[in-house]
């Protein structure tokens, strides 16, 4: 964020200011050290930790379109689920290598995202919500109806993934799964970071801030939106593929509306347009679900509902946004 006391009124100072926007902050570095904590202190929770990393990658993909480009969605599980099925079906053809599996699944889903993007960039607001919702439901029902391919409500069974790098097999405790999902999340974040701090990322923020001005500066904004939507779909697909690879099965609920809604809730809890908002949101959401479901498996959504309302009312920019504002106030 801009430091109001510093004098940037020179070109060199301004260039430096722009470089600073894209630099790693101490908080980010601290976060990436903290992610190793579960290995040492919560080894029984590594499976949960890898679920969180997957949800975080999914939330990150939604942040790219919702937080940075202003595209709202209630159907992103469509891409998550397609990635999950793609990865599962790929192993059924006899190719179980996980890394290429991720790439192939991601590329396939990105392609689907690209096709869908032609519709998405033509609508806004409520129509956009309904289109994304409709496409999500459509995909779910399609997967349900094509049970010869997907296993329908029984899910896709018999997914066998080879060890990572031919060496690291999935263990019962989830050491490999968490290491793997964490590494993929990190790569996803690096990509998202580069996109956000590029000229393209600036163009997306321009679209979010004032769509109407964009044509007046000669910007082909629909093309920009198509590109980010495609990238976001691919990233969601990779997250879905990760779930398949670490759990060796695909359930129909990878495509569910619930999943589309949950990811938006995570993002809003954490704060949109900040890259880490979705990650923090995923941690809070998944840990809360785990703990609350332990107390009462039926009513845990009640508490998520309360939490969501409190956050939206008290911290409209999400938990990270709130903390950033608090920090600004303390510093002054």
């Amino acid at each position, binding site marked *: 964020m*801009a430091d*109001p006391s510093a004098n*940037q*009124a020179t*070109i060199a100072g*301004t*260039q430096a*200011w*722009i*470089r600073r*926007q*894209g630099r790693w902050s101490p908080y980010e570095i601290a976060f990436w050290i903290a992610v190793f904590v579960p290995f040492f202190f919560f080894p029984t929770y590594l499976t949960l930790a890898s679920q969180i990393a997957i949800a975080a990658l999914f939330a990150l993909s939604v942040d790219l379109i919702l937080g940075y480009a202003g595209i709202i969605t209630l159907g992103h599980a469509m891409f998550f689920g397609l990635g999950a099925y793609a990865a599962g079906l790929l192993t059924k053809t006899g190719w179980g290598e996980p890394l290429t599996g991720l790439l192939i699944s991601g590329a396939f889903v990105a392609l689907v995202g690209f096709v869908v993007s032609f519709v998405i960039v033509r609508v806004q607001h409520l129509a956009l919500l309904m289109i994304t919702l409709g496409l999500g439901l459509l995909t779910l029902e399609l997967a349900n109806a094509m049970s010869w391919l997907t296993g329908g409500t029984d899910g896709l069974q018999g997914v066998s993934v080879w060890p990572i790098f031919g060496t690291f097999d999935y263990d019962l405790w989830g050491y490999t799964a968490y290491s793997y999902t964490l590494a993929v999340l990190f790569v996803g974040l690096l990509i998202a970071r*580069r*996109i956000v*701090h*590029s*000229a*393209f*990322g*600036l*163009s997306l*923020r*321009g679209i979010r*801030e*004032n769509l*109407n*001005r*964009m*044509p*007046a*500066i*000669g*910007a*082909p*904004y629909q*093309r*920009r939106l198509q*590109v980010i939507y495609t*990238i976001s779909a691919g990233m969601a697909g990779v997250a879905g593929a990760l779930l398949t690879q670490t759990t060796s099965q695909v359930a129909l609920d990878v495509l569910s509306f619930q999943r589309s809604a949950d990811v938006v809730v995570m993002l809003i809890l954490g704060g949109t347009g900040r890259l880490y908002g979705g990650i923090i949101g995923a941690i809070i959401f998944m840990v809360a679900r785990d703990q609350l479901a332990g107390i009462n498996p039926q009513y845990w959504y009640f508490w998520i509902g309360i939490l969501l309302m409190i956050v939206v009312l008290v911290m409209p920019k999400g938990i990270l946004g709130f903390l950033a504002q608090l920090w600004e106030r303390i510093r002054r």
Partner: protein
Amino acid sequence: MSTETYALRTENLRKRFGSLEVARDVSITLPRGARHALIGPNGAGKTSLVNLITGQLPPDSGRVLLEGQDITRLNRAARVKAGLARTFQINQLFPALTPIEAITLAVTERKGTAGQFWRSLASHGDAIDEAWGILAQLRLTEVATRPTRVLAYGQQRLLEIGLALATRPKVLLLDEPAAGVPKGESAELFSVIAALPDDISVLFIEHDMSLVFKFAARIIVLVSGGVLLEAEPDVIRTDQRVRDVYLGQAHHG
């Protein structure tokens, strides 16, 4: 194309909304290096004309030519690429972006590098330098890294012009650039416009007649969607019809 002596020309532009005619056979010509003012009472269709020229409104009939090229069917962004830029009467800025970011955005869009998601923004040094140059021209360097929303209103109006300049226009349409700016500051704002290089042809809408007479080389008077008169300031000043239009408006409203 280069043999054309005009920068912008409209030919019989027509537009009606139901019974309301916002453009009645508007044919105007803007020579190269023009400093033309577009005046007229409220509801005369001044902003509608700008919208028709820039492609925000499709005309019912008629043509728009930019240095001989028919741009009537081009979309808004393509017209900007062809060299036609505008500013808005009500600020159309990017509230959370800083001025240096906003202008750099417009520069990279013009250069065609704004789609590059694999390079960091900081590596677009030439675009940032150019944006800085524009901010310097507008005396906005002091606030270059503050969010646009905290800028003083007059600074926001200047940024509005800066965004248009970043597209390197041949023709610049300014829709009430000084709208809402206190009288003392509006002359300063217009001095920035007057200092623009001659290869930019300017058409501006303005209500303050003292500014119009001071900065316009020629004046187009628009009334009820049609051109009433186009002439030098001295002619406009003494023209009875123009007086009637403005006095009439004063009487009735």
